[in-house]
């Protein structure tokens, strides 16, 4: 009768919050791939001999990684000393399906000496950023209050059709990106969701060209590294 004490894991403890996986390629590959289902479904069902228990896990995945084993592939500061094979093997630890579920991919470049040496007074504080974030989130909560969801990341296909309408100009941009970057259907809907968020941050009801292009720009790193 063992195996009945089912308890939730880190992803459920991160419900409505953040799951941060530092140095993503260091994780066991199969452990990362376990996240595929929960990242889409927002809940996880654990089945054991005599019980099946569902826990909610609506979390935001934030991961960080180096581009290669030595860490300097694509860097402007130092040359990468890894062989092509090494880089490929390193990057292949992150599977395509996981990458496809990550809406925002961003490159963090090293900081120049001038920037490091500048005084910190001009830099925006967290509270200012949080103020904008809160306003954008309030718009979302208000918009989706009848649907039982809290944010753009939870939009269902039906709601995307309703709230992520694009003008013909935007559609053209998205179409050319879709073909050029070889995006998946999931990536397409995810770009629309991110564009909706960027428009919300701008306090704009309509998704404009700059919003959709910023959203597309967050998806092109996998072409750079994983191709």
């Amino acid at each position, binding site marked *: 009768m063992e195996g009945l004490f089912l*308890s939730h894991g880190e992803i459920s403890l991160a419900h409505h919050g*953040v799951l941060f996986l530092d140095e993503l390629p260091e994780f066991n590959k199969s452990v990362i791939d376990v996240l595929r289902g929960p990242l889409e479904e927002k809940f996880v069902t654990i089945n054991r001999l005599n019980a099946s228990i569902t826990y909610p896990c609506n979390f935001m995945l934030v991961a960080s990684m180096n581009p290669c084993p030595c860490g300097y592939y694509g860097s402007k500061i130092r040359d990468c000393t890894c062989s092509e094979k090494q880089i490929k093997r390193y990057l292949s630890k992150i599977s395509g399906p996981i990458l496809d579920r990550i809406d925002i991919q961003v490159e963090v470049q090293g*900081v120049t000496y001038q920037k490091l040496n500048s005084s910190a007074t001009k830099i925006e504080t967290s509270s200012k*950023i*949080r103020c904008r974030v809160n306003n954008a989130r309030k718009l979302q909560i208000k918009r989706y209050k009848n649907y039982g969801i809290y944010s753009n*990341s939870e939009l269902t296909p039906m709601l995307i059709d309703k709230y992520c309408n694009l003008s013909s100009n935007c559609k053209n941009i998205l179409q050319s990106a879709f073909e050029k970057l070889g995006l998946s259907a999931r990536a397409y809907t995810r770009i629309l*969701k991110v564009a909706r968020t960027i428009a919300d941050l701008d306090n704009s009801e309509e998704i404009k060209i700059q919003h959709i292009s910023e959203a597309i720009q*967050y998806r092109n790193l996998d072409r750079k590294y994983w191709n």
Partner: protein
Amino acid sequence: MLSIVKSISLQGLQGYLVSTQVDISSGLPNFEIVGLPDTIVKESKERIKTAIKNSGLEFLSRKIVVNLSPANIKKEGSMFDLPITVGILIANGDIVNKYLDDYLQNTVIIGELSLNGNIEKINGVLPMCIEAKKLGIKRIILPKSNAIEASFISGIDILPVSNLLEIIEFFNGNFIIEKIDSSNTNIQFSSHYNFDFCEVKGQESAKRALEVAAAGGHNCLLIGSPGSGKTMLAKRLPSILPDISFDESLEVTKIHSICGLTSEKNPLILTRPFRSPHHTITHSSLVGGGLIPKPRRN
């Protein structure tokens, strides 16, 4: 004599009522708990015996059978200590009240006993109260140290008790347990963070990306060379996450409550969780799970 006391337990986040049935009859002295108890529930025998003795009552050497119904679900946790004890005291005639049956019909009792008769904090009180309310229960008797956590639920009477004598006197009509005011909406959202984005110099585009991610709850991947500030940026993410709403907070607290991660004084979790497991984490600690299922032994 037979007595039946209601209690509640959880399967995941779902609650189910457990009827704690106690029968005391003459026969060889024996104390047996049936209904698939796990080790914690089985050990409650010793806690109960000693707590009753140390509360100045006599624990009779007779044949005591306790059944936790539904008998086909494995019962785990220490919250059955109190309902079993109350059941024994009723069956034993230590608690006498002619309205008792009606009262217990709509009452759920949960709590762990310590050897001196004190009633100790248990895990999962918030989801238990929510589920008890859903199941049509009118009042819940629980440990005093869980009272604040339970007070966020309205529509069900919360009766906190601190020791065994209190609950005996209460049922005998000699003591009044003060109901907790369940309109506890005085919530202070904290906005204090140890890290701030103004400590990160440069990295405007990464900051912007994190701002978008935080605003819409989007997944985000930071790629960069060592020392470029990826971890530094991610550590500061909680400081720009949107405020958690009361409903979201209840959902988060429910999960944290089950594994005892809530504090006694400020049980409600008012900041968004930020979990950063080490990369040696296993499948089951990441998504949840339990002991590896083994073939049935008996």
